[in-house]
């Protein structure tokens, strides 16, 4: 195993994944993708991809759908925005503060949902999200409510390219953090809890500890993304906390494949671009893109609940050709 392979292994990337990242990195300079509106779409796609990774970290491993995901993301965004607007804190520090407060909120949500299981924990997280959205709408003196809070932008340019690289970086960092954790002992504990909590408890795993860890981390990363959102779009309304947003990330994460982390990210780019194309191309048919969303989610749930990642593992993962195998799976581990 040479050094390159070692580094890749450390980062939980494969040569194919690296190639994908390189393609994404040069994409904004290649026509037709170098137009500003297409870069905006790419940013939206990368944002969803990063969201899907951190969402899957909870949903795919400990098997709890965090239905208040976007509310917590929005909470991070609002924290950062309010700090920047009212106290003049620079956005970079604000984003970190937002991530920390979102993490704290995730910690509390984790505590709150502890005594519930599966779907009921999901509904509980949803209630927390609804309450947060209600607060953001009604606390007009702080958040300006539905009028929207104007926020300073991160970079002093009209170009979208720096934002694109920032969100791509955030996506990569979330992926590396999450995948490092799930491939460690903690990840095995997560999976055990997700599959059968009683069995996990019998094997000496403390579900309380792992569930809270998971929620806290996932929400911290969500808060980071929220900060990016706030300082990229320059305006923040309570709509960001809406359940529909969570559904969007949820659909991408599950179509991509639960419990894979990379599946959602891989699906997000072609998917979001196609959706934006449908939306802008057929603007006289509003809602059509979301109808496709819904149909796809139903279809995947009935016929292929494992999603794209499962399909990939079953049919493409193990090619006969050795070079191809290296490309997809990376260097084989020493035996």
């Amino acid at each position, binding site marked *: 195993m040479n050094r390159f392979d070692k580094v890749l292994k450390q980062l939980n990337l494969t040569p194919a994944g690296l190639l994908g990242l390189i393609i994404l990195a040069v994409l904004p300079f290649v026509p037709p993708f170098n137009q500003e509106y297409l870069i905006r779409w790419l940013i939206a796609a990368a944002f969803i991809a990063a969201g899907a990774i951190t969402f899957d970290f909870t949903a795919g491993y400990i098997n709890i759908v965090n239905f208040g995901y976007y509310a917590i993301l929005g909470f991070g965004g609002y924290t950062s925005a309010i700090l920047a607007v009212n106290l003049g804190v620079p956005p970079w520090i604000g984003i970190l503060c937002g991530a920390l407060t979102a993490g704290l909120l995730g910690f509390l949500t984790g505590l709150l949902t502890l005594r*519930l299981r*599966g779907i009921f924990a999901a509904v509980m997280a949803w209630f927390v999200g609804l309450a947060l959205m209600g*607060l953001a709408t*009604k606390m007009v003196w702080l958040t300006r409510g539905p009028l929207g809070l104007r926020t300073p932008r991160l970079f002093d340019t009209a170009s979208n390219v720096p934002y694109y690289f920032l969100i791509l970086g955030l996506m990569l960092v979330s992926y590396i953090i999450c995948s490092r954790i799930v491939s460690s002992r903690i990840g095995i504990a997560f999976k055990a809890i997700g599959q059968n909590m009683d069995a996990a408890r019998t094997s000496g795993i403390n579900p309380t500890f792992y569930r809270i860890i998971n929620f806290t981390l996932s929400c911290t990363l969500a808060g980071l993304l929220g900060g990016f959102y706030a300082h990229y779009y320059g305006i923040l309304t309570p709509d960001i906390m809406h359940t529909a947003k969570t559904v969007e990330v949820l659909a991408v994460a599950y179509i991509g494949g639960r419990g894979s982390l990379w599946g959602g990210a891989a699906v997000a780019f072609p998917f979001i671009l196609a959706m934006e194309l449908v939306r802008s191309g057929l603007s006289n048919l509003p809602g059509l893109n979301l109808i496709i969303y*819904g149909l796809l*989610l*139903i279809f995947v749930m009935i016929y292929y609940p494992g999603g794209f990642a499962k399909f990939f593992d079953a049919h493409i993962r193990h090619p006969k050709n050795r070079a191809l195998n290296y490309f997809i799976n990376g260097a084989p581990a020493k035996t």
Partner: protein
Amino acid sequence: MSDRFIRWCTSAAGITILLSILLAVYATLDRGPYILVNTAITGGMLALVAIGLALLLGVMNVASFVHGEYFMMGTLVAYYVFTPLQNYLNANPSQTLAMVAPIIAILAAAATGAGAGALTEIMVFAPMRRRSRENWVMNSFLLTVGLAVLLINGHLLIFGADFKGIVRYWSGAPVTIMDVFISRDRLFAFLISILVILVFWIFMRTTRIGRAIRAVSQDETGALMVGINLSGILIFTMALGCALAAVAGASLLFLYPSYPTVGLEALYMAWFIVILVGLGNIIGALIGGFMVALLKVVTVEYIGSGWDFVVPTALIILVLIFKPSGIFGSGVRGVLDK
């Protein structure tokens, strides 16, 4: 007897019910009886939606996210049935038809809701059940999420995003009860909800199908063994649950005009109730409907509109911290998590 009563009073159910009654009495004395009236009207309708949701949970093990969309469907059908009738009535007035027209609209909505529910079961849940029962609760939940997105945007695509509402169902002077003016629509909405709940209750208790539904909710395999037609019962349950939501939507058309996301609020509220009282508990859903309605009305009265989302949610979260299986805690939760 008094011993049992005291024990009930100190149980979670007793405490919450007594507190709710106290709150209702206080608010009524403080602000006037219209609080009670509003609670009764909202509560009846919330109870209808929540009972449907509880039914699906108890019998089919489906944690439905799409239930509000049947409410939306009810408002839509009622609008498209009632408006032409109204126009016809304006052209040639008739006392009888004016009385009957809203009933026709609501019945049409119920029929559509039932049809849509049956179709959902046949086209979506049955294939999924045939393919795999693994991780059923989570997968069916996600499926209903997809269905909700589909229906909301289907409405947007076909009928547009504008508000499709009516001014009133029943014309005529408002009725006076306890010095409160109640518009006829509200009064009828309350009566309809009570009537539907009563019919539903008698149906579940006395008929063969009702008993079969209860049997399936208790033990699916056992029900199969005694010769119950399981797939038929599942279709029927889904149709029944969705029809209840559609009736609620149709009866409340004068309050909630039909637009794509009108069902979301009904869905939130139904989930509040179902989680609050414990899952699959139909009597509980009835009581919970009135309790959540009271919370909503009191919040709007004392704190302001818009907060009726935040305060009940916070209270429910508080309740659940101390009693996670719901205030009437039933054993259904464990089964669901199988």
